[in-house]
């Protein structure tokens, strides 16, 4: 029943089918050093700069667990309502690939660190008046593992280079239940998850640097059926936009396949998203399932988490997005849409509170951050906020005091993002101060009135439009610098 309801919600409008989606998310943990050695996890170092005999898998070396990684993974588990296992263990996953220095990956197989959690997501909240719905997405497990290195294929040269900087960087793999029913839900889940991982400082979640990666399992089935269809894995999805497009395209492909060749014509395979062609492409079939020959890693003793340590980890978890949203609603008088957008990203929420902290009106601050900031932010590097919080606070205050107009304020904001100057400097250098002196304004207005006698006549006959026209002429004559409130009252005064 529940699923039927979900199915009828399918965004693609194909009411005969239901899309079933489960995610496997890899997030790099925010540790200073790697999971089994003391090498740095810094991104962007020279190739193989952050390596040592242990993470290169040299003969005779042994792994030593970085306890910070366990703490961060447990923290993620607690924030995602998982039960954290008091005893967990590491296993070896054996396969040959040049980016895997030991020819096995140390991961957790049958005793993961965290199990059976969930995350509630809201769909529809990205539109101000969208119909908001809450879904609970099950999380079957979170386990710790090490990342692999990277293959580099220099263009036009018949060689392959290897960079092992990433080998041994700690990861958590978060596996969801197949609880999502549309690409929108999958994207909403991933956004909510990213936000929690950022809030808890478990991961910096930079998708463009690969510190958050998402593989998707997707299948379709006829509406009303309870058995799952054949699932297809989709790899290499590097942005929210790509995920939504890829999932929609893959669901469409499977539905067509189902209709033309029947359910058995959908093969269990791994596909990758080809962004250029806008469709998924087969990478390999899953027939003859790869045998990873898992067994417990004899080099690492089991991980024990005692009650007091778990307690410490639990107490160390900061305010989560949901709690922050509630508080924003309460403290700042925002509507749920605004509060949801602001708290969806920790950096943005923190920025907002800084601006408000300088004494700016909380609704004004929300308006500027949600409506004006995104325009200049989309060009910034790494999605950073390009204007310091106290500059924005200063700007909003100057507008409030009538020193500059709202429209001029938008230009100043642009200018601040580029030049990093204070609003005061920009206003001064560009001569953007509003004309708020009544004498100066009166002179301009008298001038305008004498040049537009027709409009004055219309006004006196009762035309409402005439005053608008005259205001426009005043603003034009002042080159936009007239304080509009003052100008209007002076105009009305002089006309009466």
């Amino acid at each position: 029943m529940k699923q039927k309801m979900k199915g009828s919600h399918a965004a693609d409008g194909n009411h005969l089918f239901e899309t079933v989606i489960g995610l496997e998310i890899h997030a790099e943990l925010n540790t200073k050093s790697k999971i089994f050695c003391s090498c740095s996890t810094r991104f962007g170092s020279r190739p193989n700069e952050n390596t040592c005999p242990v993470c290169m898998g040299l003969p005779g070396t042994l792994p030593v667990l970085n306890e910070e990684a366990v703490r961060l993974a447990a923290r993620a588990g607690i924030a995602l309502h998982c039960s954290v296992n008091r005893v967990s263990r590491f296993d070896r996953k054996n396969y040959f690939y040049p980016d895997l220095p030991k020819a096995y990956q140390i991961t957790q197989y049958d005793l993961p660190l965290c199990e059976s959690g969930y995350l509630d997501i809201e769909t529809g909240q990205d539109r101000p008046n969208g119909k908001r719905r809450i879904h609970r997405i099950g999380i079957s497990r979170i386990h710790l593992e090490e990342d692999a290195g990277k293959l580099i294929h220099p263009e036009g040269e018949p060689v392959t280079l290897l960079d092992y900087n990433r080998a041994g960087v700690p990861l958590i793999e978060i596996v969801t239940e197949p609880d999502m029913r549309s690409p929108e839900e999958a994207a909403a889940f991933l956004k909510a998850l990213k936000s929690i991982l950022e809030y808890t400082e478990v991961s910096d979640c930079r998708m463009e640097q690969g510190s958050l990666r998402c593989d998707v399992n997707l299948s379709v089935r006829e509406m009303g059926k309870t058995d799952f269809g054949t699932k297809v894995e989709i790899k290499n999805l590097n942005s929210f936009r790509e995920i939504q497009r890829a999932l929609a395209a893959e669901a469409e492909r499977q539905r067509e396949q189902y209709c033309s060749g029947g359910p058995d014509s959908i093969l269990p395979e791994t596909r990758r998203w080809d962004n250029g062609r806008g469709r998924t492409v087969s990478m390999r079939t899953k027939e003859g399932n790869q045998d990873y020959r898992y067994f417990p890693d004899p080099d690492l003793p089991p991980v024990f988490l005692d009650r007091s340590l778990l307690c410490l980890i639990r107490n160390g978890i900061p305010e989560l997005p949901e709690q922050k949203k509630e508080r924003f609603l309460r403290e700042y008088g925002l509507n749920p849409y605004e509060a949801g957008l602001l708290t969806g990203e920790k950096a943005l929420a923190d920025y907002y509170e800084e601006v408000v902290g300088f004494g700016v009106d909380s609704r004004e601050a929300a308006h500027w951050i949600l409506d004006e900031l995104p325009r200049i932010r989309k060009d910034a590097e790494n999605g950073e906020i390009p204007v310091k919080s106290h500059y924005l606070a200063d700007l909003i205050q100057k507008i409030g005091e009538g020193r500059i107009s709202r429209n001029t304020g938008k230009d100043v904001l642009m200018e601040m993002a580029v030049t990093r100057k204070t609003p005061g400097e920009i206003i001064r250098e560009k001569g953007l101060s509003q004309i708020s002196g009544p004498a100066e304004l009166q002179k301009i207005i008298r001038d305008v009135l004498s040049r537009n006698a027709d409009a004055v006549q219309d006004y006196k006959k009762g035309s409402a439009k005439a005053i608008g026209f005259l205001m426009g002429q005043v603003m034009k004559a002042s080159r936009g610098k007239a304080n509009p409130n003052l100008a209007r009252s002076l105009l009305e005064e002089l006309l009466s």
Partner: protein
Amino acid sequence: MTIDEIQKGYRDKRFSVREIVTEYLERIRKLDGTIGAFLTVCDDSALQKAAELDEKRSRGEETGPLAGIPVAVKDNICTRGIRTTCASRVLEDFIPPYDATVVKKLKEADAILIGKANLDEFAMGSSTETSAFQTTRNPWDITKVPGGSSGGSAAAVAAGFAPLAIGSDTGGSIRQPSAFCGVVGLKPTYGSVSRYGLVAFASSLDQIGPIAGNVKDCALAFQVLRGQDPNDSTSMQPDAAGMPSFPSCLPDQGIRGWKIGLPRECFRHGLHPEIEESVRECGRLFEKMGATIREISLPVWDMGMNVYYILSSAEASSNLARYDGIRYGIRAKDYNNLEEMIVHTRSEGFGWETKRRILLGTCVLSSGYEKGYYKRAMRLRDKIRAAFRKAFQEYDLLLLPTTPTLPFDIGKQHSDPLEMYLADIHTVSMSIAGVPALSLPCGFSRSGLPIGVQLAANHFEENKLFSAASLLEREFGPSGRNTPPDMPPVGKIVDNILTRGGKQY
């Protein structure tokens, strides 16, 4: 020569470290062509270190507990800047950029690394014949094998190439060659010596230990090697109470009132009658010293071999997968793509015994995780451990043969691998249980070959092994003084120095 004798000579200024090292190197140069104990001899670095030590001593500075003692290290233990081959083509040119923890400890104790000893390829074998590079001969009879896999280490001590050697034991690889070569070898408690830098064969079983000419030297070396290591998460610090300092626990601490168990399962078919007689004689000697000897039954004994081959081959198949020719070691010359490069490198690089075990281990692991062989073997390992725990609640020691046979002919095992696997039959169970066990000489066969007897104790009770072994040693005489018949006596080293110079230091 014993460690004591050498160090007394240093103290009495009868000779310098440089002279001792020079003499040992000379002996190796003359005789190792026949024995083949070493894959690498470290002439230059050994002489340099010797000179440094003489400097240090002349300045009156304190030196470590193994100061000036030449030591041979099995070539599967990493030595910084010195080739470490595991007796395999695949690592023929591998020069580690780091020292194994035990090598670091030896250096800190001022021991002198004199060479890297031969072994079965990746420590897989019981005769040192699977070495890709050379055959090592038993110094007591050069037509016989020295045992394995630490055959080079045991032969080096027996031939007087070094008073001390370091080996590794996975299923008997220290004890069995020690028995064959008539020297003392200890497989310590699993976790008491760091494995960092030991090229892994079977990680849950591998353990580094000393091989020496007598019990006291063996104990002294163990004292230096043991201890928890932050680089090895499986290394452990025993309770302080359970670990008296070794040399002091040796003399005159009798074994009166001890209960010693004689596992019935070891004295069945296949045991060489002369070995059986020697072990029983040891029992009678212990009885005379006031201990009680009882025959006991350990029904888990018979599982030992199966559990051992499942666990060790499975772990080996994973541990040896990294030799793909990409980062270090050899790389096949002929390949068209990546997969071929890996396959050809491994086909050319590994010997037959190593391949056999990798295949066996791959099959073991392919049988699945939850219900597969590896997990079942782990459960049986728990049973074996429990049986040993129970036995040691009642008994202080177990007394048993080290090997079922006397040293066998070189070349014989190739015809029958099963026979090679049986060479470990009396040693694997202690490896699986993780308890310490020591092999020491207890006389010779009528054919003049050494016979070894094995003692086993509970976890971290190496002190009991040393106490009982040193008492037994008094009856048989330390093996180090008995030089193999065709070799000049080891004592000659001092004579040579003294007759040549006679200079006082």
